[in-house]
């Protein structure tokens, strides 16, 4: 694909705007690095967020009337590409929690005009944070077996039940929740998707401590919590369609998000050379480790090339592709193996939990390795992904459900 003059002029306008609007003090940071490690930059960040939001670039492909910029996906990609050399970043998807990445895109398809008008701008500006109440303690991968229920009270639903893995529930203003509205219907047929404010006395959250330490996840309890009827997303008892679409958006955001390089991450071969040493010919002295490191790097490269290939095949159009199911497991395997290799490379320095006997990088590697174990569990487990490939892509019979 060769660039047209129009493309080039758009790119130039983006470049110009970024040059005059991105606060240089934030260059090379990320949202997390900024707020967690450098509170002094908070006002720069807030000003940057405001300018992005005003431009509609928090969610650039959304319509202008809902706080977006009405751009095409290739145009949105140009913004991303032009941010890179400046070390610029878009903090809004993070600030909006599950808003920009998942609830918003789904609302654009399933929402009423009233819902779009009331909710989308807050997401696109990064001012309203959203969480998702999907999983339940006894449901796991079998989302459809959920038992949180919503009782019809005329103009609103009364919601009772418990959700788990509600990321950021303790700091969110709104929640999209999957609830059972018809207990007599077949499993997937009696479910609805409702939106409700978190600031109610009858909503409680409890942070979950993970094997890796503190986490953004919560348990969330609804005891007679209230959701307006106007905030039913999609049709009554048709929540399963809504959630399937929403999870496709989740997988897609994971596929790209998981692949972003961490700030200043040292390449594994360099790390290995530092910890393990090399032979006279410059090759790693631990050949067994080296062979497995090569495997992992090749798998990583193959994954990257596949992401690029799928993009090229879609000719620049972002399409929710069936191949996304392959990428989730591939990305997870590469990342988890990489984390294991990192631990192995660090050896006795790769087993630390806290304290001065270990470098901060070493401790961070351990925590990330542990946290990374979740990647093959959430958002469609490793097993569920394979079920999906077998059934939806290869056309083999369903193996998880009878009848």
């Amino acid at each position, binding site marked *: 694909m060769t660039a047209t003059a129009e493309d080039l002029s758009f790119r130039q306008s983006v470049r110009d705007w970024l040059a005059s609007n991105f606060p240089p003090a934030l260059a090379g940071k990320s949202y997390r690095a900024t707020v967690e490690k450098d509170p002094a930059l908070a006002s720069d960040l807030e000003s940057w967020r405001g300018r992005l939001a005003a431009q509609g670039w928090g969610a650039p492909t959304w319509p202008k009337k809902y706080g977006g910029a009405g751009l095409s996906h290739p145009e949105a990609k140009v913004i991303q590409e032009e941010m890179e050399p400046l070390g610029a970043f878009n903090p809004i998807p993070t600030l909006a929690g599950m808003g920009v990445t998942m609830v918003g895109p789904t609302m654009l398809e399933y929402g009423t005009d009233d819902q779009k008008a009331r909710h989308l701008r807050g997401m696109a500006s990064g001012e309203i944070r959203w969480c998702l109440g999907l999983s339940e303690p006894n449901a796991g991968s079998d989302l459809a077996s959920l038992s949180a229920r919503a009782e019809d009270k005329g103009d609103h639903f009364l919601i009772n039940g418990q959700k788990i893995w509600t990321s950021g529930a303790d700091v969110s203003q709104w929640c999209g929740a999957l609830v059972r509205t018809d207990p007599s219907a077949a499993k997937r047929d009696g479910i609805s998707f409702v939106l409700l404010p978190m600031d109610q006395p009858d909503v409680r959250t409890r942070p979950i401590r993970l094997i890796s330490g503190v986490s953004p996840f919560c348990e969330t309890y609804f005891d007679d919590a209230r959701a307006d009827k106007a905030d039913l997303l999609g049709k009554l008892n048709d929540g399963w369609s809504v959630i399937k679409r929403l999870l496709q958006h989740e997988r897609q955001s994971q596929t790209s998000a998981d692949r972003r390089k961490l700030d200043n991450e040292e390449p594994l*071969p360099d790390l290995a050379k530092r910890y393990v040493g090399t032979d006279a010919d410059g*090759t790693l002295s631990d050949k067994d480790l080296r062979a497995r490191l*090569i495997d992992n790097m090749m798998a990583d490269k193959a994954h990257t090339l*596949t992401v690029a*290939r799928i993009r090229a095949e879609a000719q620049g159009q972002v399409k929710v592709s069936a191949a996304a199911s392959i990428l989730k497991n*591939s990305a997870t395997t590469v990342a988890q193996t990489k984390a294991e290799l990192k631990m192995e490379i660090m050896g006795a320095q790769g087993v630390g939990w806290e304290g001065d006997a270990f470098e901060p990088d070493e401790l961070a590697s351990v925590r990330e390795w542990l946290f990374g174990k979740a990647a093959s569990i959430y958002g469609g487990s490793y097993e569920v992904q*394979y079920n999906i490939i077998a059934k939806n892509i290869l056309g083999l019979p*369903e193996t998880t459900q009878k009848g």
Partner: protein
Amino acid sequence: MAALTEEQSIIRDQAKAWAAEQAPVQAFRAMRDSGAATGFEPKTWSAMAELGWTGIVIPEAYGGSDLGYLTFGLVLEELGRNLTASPLFASGLVGAAALVLGGTEAQKQALLPAIAKGSAIATLAVDEGPRHAPAGTALRAERDGSGYRLSGEKTFVFEGLAATDLIVAARTAGSPGETAGITLFLIPADTAGVNRTPMQTMDSRGYATIRFDSVPTPAEAVLGETDNGFGLLDAVLDRGRAGLGADMLGTAAQAFDMTLEYLKTRKQFGQVIGGFQALGHRAAALFSGMELARSCVEAALQALDDDAPDTAQLCSLSKAKMGEHLFQMSNQLIQIHGGIGMTDEFDAGFYLKRARVLEAAFGNRAFHRDRYARLLGF
């Protein structure tokens, strides 16, 4: 599948249709059963030349179409699916590439049009022992007047029996193991002192070992630089590796299709076996492996067309990842088919045997994993 140009799509579709009709796996079986020594059918070969595939990487000035390596790969993939046997890879890709990259004007004019027409079959003779080790080249080229005399032995030479012209890696200086001191020579296969012996391999193709008994070779036979031929050799080999990747991709893709079909039709314990989750997941893993390997194969071919700086890495990645997948796929082809897969009447064995020969050619997985790491500096 890479995003293709219209021309590439047409050629791929043409190759698919032609192979299915003119050179399906039944044709390979017939060729094997006939015991054809050269390992291919002349009429298959001439049909390919007529279709223009022999000239895909040859510039138009020398009778080719210069469509490039990705296009060549599309054809090889379709032929790989059908195990179509021919010298297309050895001559049309490797042989032609050596001439295009390293030939003098005289050498190009003498040979490239003939390769494009299919009347000449050029092949590379590089390996000397059981394992691929280009820098280990030991075959001696000793000065003799204004020319050389070649003495030594080459093995595992593709289409070594049918070849009309040989591109021989020889040592003009230094010692085996050193990349410096290697020179390529282009000589007619019927030169006095060239002795060819068939290698009857399990994939029933026409490989040969070739003994060189003080073969007289003029100075004009040097292909590329004297003593400094390793770079050219490696570049030619990389083209071969990428081409083998495409062949292996086709082999694996067909093995997958056969397996998936069997999973959907074979019944055991009252249901189609693809409904057993362990097999369903295995199929999903094989599908994923194939998609990932395909990306590597196509990236290597594309890199050759783009003359990308990481071409060598990508060619090793392609051969290694494709090798890994084909290894798994060919074993599962037999395993999932069970008893029927073990019989010679069924085609599965052909794919398994072919897979291992392709694996051993131009560097196996271990070779390319090591090379990949060295290219990345560790």
